[in-house]
């Protein structure tokens, strides 16, 4: 049963016709056409589908589309509005945290959520905060360095 779901996607109001219980992942990939949101496992174990819901990292594969009604959803496109790289994106580039890059959008968004809560995380806090995002290429070594790099360069919040 298709319903109308209105929500804010990267700052813009969008309106989508879909069943309430369809996953946000399917909605974003197949209905909106945002292929930057990845499906890695479909069961909430790998974090490749991470998006921000009201700024907090969530697995889009586990979230029913109906739950985002009226709320703010951010994907990787929302971090670099005018093509200007976010410090996390820059950190991932410079620290070599990107190998195959499939986990990258989800990891950057998860790191964004982490830095929102804890702007200067310790190594342990980074590890705890990002342990829900799998990466099979990098061994996480350079991802941790990238998040540290970005944390030093995030714009100060008022």
């Amino acid at each position, binding site marked *: 049963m298709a319903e109308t779901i209105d929500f804010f996607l990267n700052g813009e109001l969008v309106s989508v016709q879909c069943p309430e219980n369809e996953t946000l992942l399917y909605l974003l990939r197949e209905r909106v056409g945002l292929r930057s949101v990845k499906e*890695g*496992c479909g069961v909430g174990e790998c974090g490749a589908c991470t998006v921000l819901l009201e700024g907090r990292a969530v697995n889009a594969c586990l979230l029913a589309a109906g739950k985002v009604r009226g709320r703010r959803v951010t994907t990787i496109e929302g971090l670099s509005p005018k093509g200007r790289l976010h410090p996390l994106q820059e950190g991932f580039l410079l620290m*070599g945290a990107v190998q195959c*890059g499939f986990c990258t959008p989800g990891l950057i968004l998860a790191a964004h959520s982490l830095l929102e809560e804890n702007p200067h995380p310790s190594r342990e806090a980074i590890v705890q905060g990002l342990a829900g995002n799998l990466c*099979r290429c*990098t061994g996480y070594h*350079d991802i941790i360095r990238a998040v540290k790099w970005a944390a030093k360069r995030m714009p100060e919040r008022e």
Partner: protein
Amino acid sequence: MIGTNPIKIGARERVLGLTRFGVDQGRPGDLYLLLLRAFTAPARIKRLESDAAGRLPGVVRIFTAADIPGINRIGIIPSTKDQPVLSDGLIRCRGEAVALVAAETQEAGMQALGAIELELEPLAGVFDPKRALEPDVPLVHEKGNLLFRQRVIRGHADEALARSPYRLRTVYSTAPVEHGPLEVEGGRADWEDGRISVTACTQNPHYDQSDLARLLGLPPELIRVRQSETGGGFGKKLDLSVQSYLALAAFHLKRPVRMVYSREESFLGTGKRHALLIDYESGMDAQGKLTAVKVDILGDSGAYASYGFAVCMRAAVHATGPYEVPHVLVDSRMAYTNNAWAGAMRGFGVPQMAFAHEGQMDGLADLIGLDPLELRLGNCLRNGSTTATGQILKDSVGIGDCLRRLGKIYRAWQPRVRSDERFRRGLGIGAMYYGIGNTGVSNPSSAQMEFSASGELIVYTGAAEIGQGSDTVLAQMAAHYFGMPLEQVRLVRGDTKRTTSAGASSASRQTYISGNAVLDAARDLERILKEGAAAMWECRLDEIEYKSTGMEGPRGESIPVTEIVARLARQGREVKGNGRFDPPVTVLDHQTGQGAPYASYAFAAQLASVEVDTVSGLVRVPRVAAAHDVGRAINRRAVRGQIAGGVVMGVGFATMEEFIPGKTDNFREYHMPTMADAPRITPLIIESHDPSGPYGAKGVGEPSLIPTAPAVANAASRALGVRMTHLPMSLERVMETLSQTRNSKPEIRNKSGF
């Protein structure tokens, strides 16, 4: 340019979310493809009825083996193509594909899968590779259950063992492992004027093209395979997966189709790391020199061959590890069973063998009372050494340097390693050598290079970039050769229509083999440009100098590259350099396994610190130092990235990963290391400069993983005081070991701080 750290080509698009992988290829209007798989194995198909399912709304067609116009047998190794794309009537292992549904929507496709009537008659099977080779057992294939056998015989191992004052025999075993790239298999195919175009994630587009042509009974020219950006491979994307189904459906339906495996399907529908059973006996003299090894290897290929032949052979060749052993007797066999089929995975059997030979080295060190690092240093290969296959290694043997480099860290860490009531701690070393490229066979790469009208350097390569960084490394070599900035190099990559074969992105071979092919193309292009200039200035070729801005003649003449290119083009000459490289190797003697199977070898040694929780059985790996002789690091950042990634995959192999069909077929049950499981890693780059490599480079993709599990297992063995002989060292296995040893004296001495 060589040895620098340029940002990886394609990384910017990846952080922006712009990259389109295989799973992202589908477009609105494409048909969805889904597979019906069988879960009882072995079995015979008694009835397969799909007419009613085919009439459901939204279902376009259902294909079975009868719809395959060509040969329904695929496989990378020409002599062992044994795998049907759709079942030929038998289900040889769990998850075998039976029917292919093409539907307007995913939902309609799912409905059709549910409506197909499949009746199976269970058959007697064989699930133990040892049993599979006994007489009077069910045959997985008519030809028998022995897929391949490779011996390596040098000297007289039995006699040498009998004379050795120290002997150690241990049986090691490993479990099947899943590759777990974050991207599953996915792609799209289209049909136009009798030509089929497949775009999918893959590690070897040119192989894909040739087996798809066989499958469809078409000439290869009618099939174009383009490698989409690929979200990791590790060997999993070497065999055909979605490509076969995409091509088959596009062939019949003459319209675009898309297909993506579910994660569970990805576990079931691709080959795993081979489980090996290794019976290893070593001999040592009173001075601590290895005298002989006698090794019996039995591998489980599961129901299909895939890369089993290559794994069997490579395991045999690498059985001694990076040591001088005068007497060697290796018997390596690969058996078919009805288990999940095994294929290539990062290391082709060498990670399993390294677990065994390194366990032996530590065991021998204890027997003789020598430090494990010193024992290795005393036995390791050096320039001029002869390998188990009788190959003399002339140069670039960096294992000694790797071990010495680790030695400093080893001594620094030793005093910190102390066990307490609950946590047992230990350090362990793992060493390895690895032959770059395929074993004892021609495995060429080719490349082309030209300047565009605007002066960009265009490199054409068939080498699949799967995240490892071959695009960047090949572009760096081309840029370096012509003295240009990397930004002015453009790659045309992984497209059977526009590039020629580079062989597979496997066997750690692209930097070395395709790198050499790219340099060969560069030399050819330079020659063409110089010939043009020499004709114009009426001088000899050797009087012309190439400068990054253009060509300079003997009398001060100069001409920009773009102008000479335009001039030659006007004369009707093709201004494209052609390059090729095939590593000089010899075929192994089938009886004795003697020969020179590789033109270059990488070396590595790693040190792991391990902490075993005696309450939970959890093996944690807080730190790893990894020393790798890569010949020359073309891109240091990428080399360190490969090392860190390999180490963590090795930690998974050592401590947690085991594929059990029907039980661990998603990340919920199959655990791969998360950030919380990853050690702190110290990558150490050793550069021995291989004169046969491009700018001295060898390879690092697989070597990065190989020493980790041995180092972790040796450290855990130290910590527990008993030799760990099976991987993974899961919680259950560690608890079992603890309960068995609680009341007995430890086998392994725990010297102070170690």
